[in-house]
């Protein structure tokens, strides 16, 4: 496979995943905003922070839903906006048309100009529908991959890109929320905490999974950390995503007959996650753990690019 093709596929998968995660984050913010009390202002700010876009709104002024819809959904100038992500995913896909199935391409191509017709007012009015649309686009794309794409190295790069982006989003969300996960925090058990936890779980579509895994009951920092870091069954957990990355990297290693630094990095990370319990993570410092893990995702991305001759 052409290196350019591999690179394009890898990033295409990341952009699609990012668009979907951002849609979920907006949904989380919206959910918080309709709750009584002043807390939602802080929520919108934290949504920005997770996406790495909080620098776009200066000072401490309260972040409003309109800001979010503009910056994260419509803004072409913001490379993290859903519109920019979908646009770039399609451009990447178009550049490697021959590596996509017809269905994958149709999923990227259909209705791709939709967001161009929206101004802020209309986008806010139709926000729920737009978010559903983004999620549906991502699901349709994944469905096309699932049933149609050859399980060749293109597929491996696609999965690795998607899993890396997903792990990164989970980690960033946890980093922004880490203070509410700290058991020592003074307001543990307060109403505010409850909403924060549920918001984290909702942003990751993990609320139901949480209750199924832990047999219902209260939210505790240990369990949440266990689910989102270490549970190999939950598809947005760091452990699950790294499992995927590792599995596809192994396939690449077999196909290519050689391993690279990326393989070592992924294997080390996996064994770290397997051997842990959530309590240890808290002992070592949650924030430190997240920062280290984020550094690993960055390094992996670079090492993969190097190993497979991107650019």
């Amino acid at each position, binding site marked *: *496979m*052409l*290196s*350019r*093709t*591999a690179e394009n596929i890898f990033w295409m998968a990341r952009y699609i995943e990012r668009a979907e995660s951002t849609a979920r984050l907006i949904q989380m913010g919206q959910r918080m905003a309709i709750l009584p009390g002043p807390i939602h202002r802080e929520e919108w700010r934290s949504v920005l922070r997770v996406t790495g876009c909080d620098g776009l709104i200066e000072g401490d002024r309260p972040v409003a839903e309109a800001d979010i819809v503009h910056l994260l959904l419509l803004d072409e100038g913001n490379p993290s906006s859903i519109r920019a992500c979908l646009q770039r995913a399609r*451009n990447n896909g*178009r*550049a*490697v*048309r*021959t590596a996509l199935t*017809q269905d994958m*391409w*149709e999923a990227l*191509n*259909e209705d791709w100009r939709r967001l161009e017709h929206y101004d802020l007012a209309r986008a806010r009015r139709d926000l729920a529908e737009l978010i559903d649309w983004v999620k549906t686009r991502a699901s349709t794309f994944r469905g096309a991959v699932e049933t149609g794409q050859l399980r060749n*190295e293109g597929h491996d790069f696609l999965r690795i890109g998607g899993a890396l982006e997903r792990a990164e989003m989970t980690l960033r969300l946890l980093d922004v929320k880490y203070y509410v996960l700290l058991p020592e925090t003074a307001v543990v058990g307060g109403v505010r905490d409850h909403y924060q936890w549920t918001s984290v779980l909702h942003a990751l579509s993990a609320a139901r999974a949480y209750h199924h895994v832990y047999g219902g009951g209260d939210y505790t920092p240990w369990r949440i950390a266990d689910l989102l870091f270490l549970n190999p069954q939950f598809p947005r957990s760091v452990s699950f995503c790294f499992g995927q990355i590792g599995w596809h990297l192994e396939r690449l290693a077999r196909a*290519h007959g050689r391993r690279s630094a990326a393989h070592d990095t992924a294997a080390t990370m996996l064994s770290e996650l397997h051997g842990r319990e959530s309590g240890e993570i808290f002992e070592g410092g949650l924030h430190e753990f997240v920062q280290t893990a984020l550094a690993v995702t960055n390094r992996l991305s670079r090492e993969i690019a190097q190993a*497979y*001759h991107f650019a």
Partner: protein
Amino acid sequence: MGFFEMTDRSGAVRSCYAQVQRWVDEVGIDGLQLRLKEAETIFRRIGITFAVYGEGGDPERLIPFDLLPRIFSAAEWRVLDRGIRQRARALNAFLYDVYHRGEIIRAGVVPGELVYRNRAFEPEMIGFDPPGRVYSHIVGIDIIRTDEDGFQVLEDNCRTPSGVSYMLENREIMQRMFPELFASTRVAPVDSYPNDLLATLKEVAPAGAGSDPTVVVLTPGSFNSAYYEHSFLADLMGVELVEPMDLYVDDDKVWMKTTHGPKRVDVIYRRIDDDFIDPLTFRPDSMLGVAGLFGAYRAGGVTLCSAPGAGIADDKAIYLFVPDMIRFYLSEAPILQNVPTWRCALPDECAYVVEHLHELVAKEVHGSGGYGMLIGPKATRAEIAAYAERIRAAPADFIAQPTLDLSTAPVLGTREIVGRHVDFRPYCLVGKRMRLAPGGLTRVALTEGSLVVNSSQGGGVKDTWVLDD
């Protein structure tokens, strides 16, 4: 009123259109209009688009599609098939000749200055033998019809004739939407084209390429107007679609950069013009090229399809001599006729052309895509005067042809079936042997009375059927 493809001179529906006529009667115009909208939605979704240079607006607009097929009877196709193959053979023989001994020039059949002073002539190719002596591997010949028996060649395309993806997609969409129509009609399939193309390209691999040569399609990139076609063909052949940045030359061999490291490339179906393929040999300012590509080609390390310099054979000034080429190289009578053409390079003919511009179609010899032409009967006095001035300034750059009574084909109008002018481009593949799919691209001028069918000028396309006996 010219020939209407659907009816004979008495106004009766010709037998090859009988099935379509029944279908129109059954479904009705409104029913067909609905289906047309459906077809357009499918086209849009699967992304068959055509960008037009310099026109602004939607860079990925759709080419208008017409539902009613253009139909050739088996007997008509037999003539076309033979005529097209004959022409493709002669054009390749001509290319070999002008880059070797130039016998047709020595014999006084083709004037030497038309060849050697031509911009499309490539001195770098003199004395070089491309594999199989094939220069133009995909010959697209634009054919028009003036009456029931009169097929005429309007233009030859020996470099990278485009549009074959529409031949395949138009058929695909028609079959998807109207399976019942195909079940009741014997339409010859065209879907072997990608396999034929791949076989052709493999046949012309360099001597050292081994039994399974690596073929790639070279595109300028996703912003090129024909990118859809490039990716479509690579996809159907199952070969890599590469951009110049994916290739490099080392030791007179061509390599593509893959995730496994460098991989050898044997045959390049390039959709990039001569001028741009290699900044070392051709335009040094080309951002598109691969440095050293031409050297690798001359050293036999890779085959370029088409060969650089193949454009000399489809030059509008050379076109005049194709019937002579057929007689000269093949000792055969031309099966397809040329459209009568005046050469402004000859003083007598130039004088005639300038005098009669109001009734002629004048073209720039080096122009393409319907640009830079004058359609006399539709032009204003001022336009004619200005064009005459240009011809006088550089007569050798112009030719002129009569305004032909192009045939019209049935097109779905809003209330009824209407006739619109069409032309036809079949694609003849030339490797060790020749392959010609029974069909091609029918382009249609969707504006009433218009003669311009180029997609770059707003023309549309329709499926082309060749009926089996």
